[in-house]
Each structure stands twice: as C-alpha cells, then as structure tokens.
C-alpha cells in the first residue's frame, strides 16, 4: 500500500486551456479519497494522471514516496477496479479470480495463496468451485473485486464505477466497496459526479471546479463548513438555499424577513451591503412544531407554500421568493454549473412529516439562525466560515478511520469478521439520501 501525493499538478491540452490547474493533494496510506465535481471539473483527468493514462504537463506525482511522472501504467502497480467486471460463465469462481495471475504466468502455489487470501476477505471461500451463475448479484460483484485484490496493487482506483448500473445495484455496490476498503485498508481514489456517493463513501472528499481544487475535507466538514458558494451548493441533497440578504448591523433583511446573526457572524459581514444567506433545508421547521426552548435561537417568518412533498419519513415545502435580477441570474448560473435542475429562487425547506402545512396557504416557519452561512455574492467566498470548527470535524473523521484500520489489522487472520456480508447480499443504501435527488422542483 502507498500514499499518493500530488504537487502543483497541471494538465494542459493542445488548446492551452488547463483541464487541471495547480492541484496539490495528499492522500494518506489507506485513505479513501473521493474526487467529486460536475462534468468538466477535471476529476477524471486527475485520476488518469495518477494511473498514468494521461501525461502530466507539470508538477509531481508521487506514489509510495517515488515520483512516477514518467512511469508507464503497468509500472505504477495500481489497480483500476471494475473497468471490466464481466465474469466468465464457464470458469469457476476460483478461476475467475485467479485469471489475471494466470496471464502473468504466476506459479500455482502463489496463485492459490492469493486467491484464498482474497476469498477470505470477500467471504467467498465456500463458493470457489461454483460457476458465477450460481451466485447472487452481490457475490458476483465480490468475485470481480477479487480479481482486483489478487493483483496486490498499491492502491485501488475507481472511475465512476457505478454510473452504468441501475439504482438498486448501485446501492449494493456502494456498500460492498465501502466494506472492502475498510477491511483491506487499501489506499483508494474514487471519482464520481454524484455527491451522495461522495458523502457516503469517502474519508475525505476533494471538490473540484473547472480544474481547481475548491476544498478537501471530511464529508461533515464540507457539509457544515463549506468554503464557498460552489461547495455549499454542490454538497447536500436537496441543496442549500441561497437567499439575498441586506446587512443592517447584526441583522440580515431577507425575503423571509429579518434574521439576527450572532456576534461572530455579524462581525464577519460588517461593512457589506448585500450578502447571500445560505440555509440548508433541514435548518427550517414548521414553527408550530418547534420546541419552545429552541425557538429563541432562531427567527420565524410567514410565507405562502407553493408545493409540499410528503415522503413518509420526511416532508419538504417549496417556497418561492423574489430576488434582485443580478442575484437571480447568479443563482441560475450556479445551478447550471452544478448540473442541477433546481430552481434557485425557490427555497426548499424540510418540515416534520407530521406538519399540516398545506400547498397554497400561508404558514409560519422557523429558521435555526445558528446554522446559516453568509457568502460574498461577488467572489462566492464563505464570509462566516469557522475554519477551526471545520478542521475539528475532519480530525475526528481521520481518527475514526485510523481506529477502524487498527481494528481490522488486529482482526485480520483470526475470525475474518464472520457475518460482515449478509448471506443474501442485501446491500443497503447507508444514507437513504439517494432518493432525494429525484425530487421534483
């Protein structure tokens, strides 16, 4: 296994336009790093430079302490997982896993050792003599992963591996990949355009925009302390709401009425006229259902609901608002850049599923003002960023991962964690957030 370090990586094509621009990123040994961003952000190009599929225009690519810029892909000993997960129906599971080793004419004893080791990790031992047709969908995916494991690569690389699967299989695979990575503790770089995948899989997530690295942080830090409007809008589903707000001392005047800021935030926006106030949907609530003890830490407002959407365990209300033309245009551009079809001059607010707020009627809402962020409308910077609070979240995530790896290292060779895979391979979606992406707007 190995760490991957990127220093000032630039990739320019013939037209001189940089596809990846001054990216520096350190991926620790055993870390699960996600590269995420909308199409054209440079994430796949960056991955291809790690593998050796693209020449690097300038900068250093260092894998396991060695500069690999001029090394051919096969000399980097990395494994692109699932670039082909076709199983051969007439070969046993054993031979399907052993297959890449046979091509390299490895001796039988070593093949056997590696296949059995992979089968242990993947809990496929009792199926080794079967044909793939006799396996469940989840087991088949594990056979394909076995093929990557026996190569004993320094790192696993995934390039949008789930994009051509249907939603059910996608959820299963996500779970399998996550478990496998934890058990093997292998450095993993995973490219996706899907922020839900990014948030559920990664130890850390690198958000890219037009070839520039925006923020590298744990999913929770990205969610709670986004550095700018782009990250704030990209991470989270449904996305963060952005409301135009004029600054009046420690108060913001918003289309939903006045919102009072705490001292730190008020200081951060001092001297500005207009800011964009960012509020995540879940920091709203039906005012009638808010605990009186909590009510005072927020503000209330009245608004007419356009549409409500009840999903059983949750409920959303859609509230249109007016914005100056310049702000409306800016939000529309952002929406387009994020490949999102959300209308940005409409707030999406999460309300309790028992709320009786109805479409077309006016209702009273509450905003948890402790959780709002203010963004500079010109630069997009988060003016109220609490960098220390964010760094703390990422430190905690790193500690969790290290504890996990130590746990697996301790457990390896003994019980192999019986029951880590459900017998029927019923992989589930860890967050349940995937469904939110199909929400109507």
């Amino acid at each position, binding site marked *: 296994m190995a760490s991957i370090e990127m220093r000032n990586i630039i990739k320019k*094509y*013939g037209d001189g336009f940089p596809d990846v621009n001054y990216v520096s990123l350190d991926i620790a040994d055993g870390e699960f790093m996600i590269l995420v961003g909308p199409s054209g952000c440079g994430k796949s190009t960056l991955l*291809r430079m790690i*593998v*050796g*599929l*693209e*020449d690097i225009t300038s900068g250093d690519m260092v894998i396991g302490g060695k500069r690999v810029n001029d090394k*051919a*892909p*096969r000399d980097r000993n990395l494994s*692109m997982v699932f*670039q*082909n997960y*076709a199983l*051969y*129906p*007439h*070969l046993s599971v054993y031979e399907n896993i052993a*297959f*890449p080793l*046979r*091509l390299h*004419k490895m001796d039988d004893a070593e093949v056997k050792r590696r296949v059995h080791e992979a089968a242990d990790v993947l809990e496929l031992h009792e199926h080794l003599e079967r044909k793939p047709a006799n396996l469940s969908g989840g087991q088949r995916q594990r056979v394909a992963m076995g093929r990557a494991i026996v190569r004993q690569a320094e790192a696993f690389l995934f390039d949008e591996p789930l*994009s*051509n*699967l*249907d*939603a059910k299989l996608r959820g299963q695979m996500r779970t399998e990949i996550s478990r496998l990575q934890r058990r093997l503790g292998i450095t993993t770089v995973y490219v996706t355009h899907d922020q839900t995948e990014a948030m559920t899989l990664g130890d850390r997530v690198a958000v890219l925009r037009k070839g520039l690295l925006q923020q590298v942080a744990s999913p929770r830090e990205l969610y709670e302390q986004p550095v700018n409007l782009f990250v704030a809008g990209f991470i989270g589903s449904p996305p963060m709401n952005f409301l135009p707000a004029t600054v009046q001392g420690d108060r913001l005047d918003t289309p939903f009425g006045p919102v009072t800021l705490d001292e730190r935030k008020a200081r951060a926006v001092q001297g500005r006229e207009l800011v964009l106030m960012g509020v995540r949907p879940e920091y709203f609530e039906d005012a009638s259902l808010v605990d009186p003890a909590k009510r005072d830490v927020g503000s209330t407002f009245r608004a007419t609901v356009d549409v409500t959407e009840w999903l059983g365990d949750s409920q959303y209300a859609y509230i249109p608002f007016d914005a100056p033309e310049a702000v409306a245009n800016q939000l529309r551009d952002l929406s387009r850049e994020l490949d999102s079809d959300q209308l940005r001059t409409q707030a999406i607010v999460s309300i309790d599923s028992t709320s009786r707020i109805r479409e077309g009627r006016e209702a009273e809402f509450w905003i948890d003002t402790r959780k709002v962020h203010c963004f500079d409308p010109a630069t997009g910077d988060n003016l109220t960023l609490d960098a220390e609070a964010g760094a703390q979240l990422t430190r905690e995530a790193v500690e969790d991962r290290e504890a996990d790896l130590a746990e697996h290292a301790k457990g390896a060779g003994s019980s192999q964690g019986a029951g880590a895979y459900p017998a029927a391979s019923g992989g589930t979606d860890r967050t349940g957030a995937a469904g939110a992406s*199909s929400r109507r707007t």
Partner: protein
Amino acid sequence: MPALTDLRLRVPSPELLGLPWDKRLEEWSADAATLVDLQVGPSRHEVRFVRADGVLWAVKQLPQRVGAKEYAVLRELESMDLPAVRPAGLALQPDTGNALLVTRYLTSSWQYRRLFMRLPPDRPRQRARLLDAMATLLVELHRHGVYWGDCSLANTLFTRDGQRLQAWLVDAETSEVHPRLSDGQRQHDLEILVENVAGGAIDLAMMLGRPPEIVPRLIEEAAGVAQRYAELWDYLHERPLFSFADRWEVEGRIRRLNEMGFAVDEISLEPAGDGDERLRLTVSVAGRKYHSTTLRELTGLDVGEGQAQILLAHLRAYEAELQARSTGPQRTTGRGVSDVAERWLVERLRPGMLAAHAAVGGVGDPVQAYCDLLEVRWLLSEQAGRDVGDDAALAVLADRSPPADSAAMAGVAEVPTAQLPRPSPERLREPSSGPE
C-alpha cells in the same frame, strides 16, 4: 406511463418512429414492435432486436448519462468512418432515468462464439485471423484518438472480408475520444484487450469441453495480439532516415503500406539535422482503404478492403491474360484500364459471383462468395498440383467442406442456425488435432 421528453432519430423510418419509446425495454411487446430473437451472449444491459421498415435494429437500455455519452461517442466514430456500429437514435426517459440507444444491426456480422462453435476443434489459424482483426481494429481506433476502455471479444462483432476478418466495435460505453492518445492510454487499452481476449477464449474453450492444455496456448495467442498491435503501430508511425541517394526506398515503404491496405495521404522528407546529412521520412497514413478505393475507381464496386485486395489481384491477372492473348504492337492500344475492368466485370466477376453465391445457398454476400471460390480453387489446385477449375471448387463450397484452415471455412459463421446440422456431443469433443 413515463413521460417522454427527448427522442432523436437519425433515420426517417416511420416504423422506427412508431416504436414504444416511452416504455422500458423489457415492457416492449410483440404488438408494439416486431421483436427478433437473436443470441448475443451476456450483456450488462438489456438489449433487444427489432425489425422496422425491413431493417434490423439493436436497442439497448442503459442509464441516461451513459447512454447519451455512448451515442455521442458512436457518432464521432461514424464521422471518422471507423469500424463501429452506427448509431441510429437515442430516446431519453426522464422518469425511468433510462436511455434507449438504437444502433443499426450490422449485416452478416457474428460473434466469435458462433464461429468457433461451428469450426472443427482447435484451429489456431482461424483464431489468428480473428486476433489479427482485433489488433487492426485497436490500431485504427488509437490512430484516431479513440480509447476503447473495454475491448473484448464479447464487445466486438466480426464480418468476413476476403481472406481476412473485419472487427467492429459494438460497445462504446467506456470509450472516450481524445485529440490524440498518450502512450499510457494505448498501453492500458491494450492490456485490457489482452486480458479480455484471453478470458473470452478460455471461457469458450471450457464451454466446448476442450482439454485444459489448450489454456496456455490461448494465453500465448492473446499476448500475441499486443505484439501484432505493436508491429503495426510502429510501422505506421516510424520515421526512418534515408540518405538522399537511397530515396527509392521510400517507394518500397509506400508499397508495403499499400499492401497492408493503407492509403498514403502525404509523405515528407526533412533533413535529419544535427550534422546528419540523411533525410527523415514522415508518412501521413490515411484510412485502411487503399485497395477498395482503387477498385471503386476502376469498376464502381464498393466492397471491403480485404475483398478488394483479392478482386484487384484477379483483375490484374485477367488484364495480363488479355495482354498475353493479344499479339504484336497493338497489345494495349485501344484498351484502357476501364475497358479491361468492364470486360472483367462482365466476363468473370458477375458470373463467378452468381455461381459461387448459389453454391453456398445464397448465404452471405455474393462478393465474399466469389472470394471464397477463388481461395478454394487455389488451395485445391495447390494440393492437386494442377488447376482444378471452378467446378471442383464450387462443389466443395456447396458441400460446406473447404479446407479447415481456409478463410472460406469461416463462412460457417454466416449460415443461419436453422440450416446447420445439429452438432453431436462427439463432434464438439473431437480431440485436438494439435498445433499446426
């Protein structure tokens, strides 16, 4: 019912337009579409075949993003005239999140399994033709900046082309088109190809109950594709140095490229520099259509490159024959190339094509049947030590018993399944005849 928002068709076919584009592919019924049952092997995604306005189409259901990308890639491959299935349309279903990608079914094409299930066991010469076609296809794609990403026997269709096979890309889900490919991309694609080809070949051998000793040979042969690729790539991209006095060697090089089927777009000779007085030759290689373009210019025939190579040789032999028959000074006067070509078409090609195509029961393409006739006649004559004539060759074609290693033998892949005798288990397990 899912709402349909986006349907693009590139073929103005009323029956194609009338298909149930708003429904999931698995819900398409015989009432709404003329479904055709074709055996195509396992696929990641649902694929069905439909007949519309007399043409056979393949419809594949896949996630929208991937479907739209594959459609765009296939259109680019078409614009570069590369051997790939031709995209005919794309339907996007926002409510199901699916795309339906329509491609025109490639006439007379077949999958590798079909050929090897029908051949006598273990024919390395036949395998070599197939692998040669794979290497050639990958070189063609890479020359045009196309990274395949998942080249395998299962993702390739084959058609017969004279004494060669032509490989066609059928699955571009993982493909990308770049201005040019890096060495890393080419190498990686080639590694994927070698691995997948070995896997596909071994899997088929196991299915057919071949002995395990064949496995190392199949692995060797798959690795040989990489070598074949490298030879071809290097020859096409080499920039050799010549001294000015030896510039006649340039012509030899161009002739060799032409023999390989490549037309030459431009040659340039530049001083090598650095005190070296030699010249560096750069050949800009055009499409692999040298013979087919020449034959079309002479005769108007539009055939495959491999077929054209055979027919041109035949035409030239005929021309030499005419010249030999003429006497004295008027040998070539009054008879331009097109006159010869016209006579050849009328006297040789057309009757020969009709006879050969009838002999093979009208299966496949008449031009190919004629190429088979020429090959079989040549092989039989070589065996007999004398010219056996057309009739003996036609009889062998009619009996579907050409020499086992002949290119004509691959004609079994084109025969509709219903016309084949049911293979007995004994026939499938016939012991290997050993390497040839």
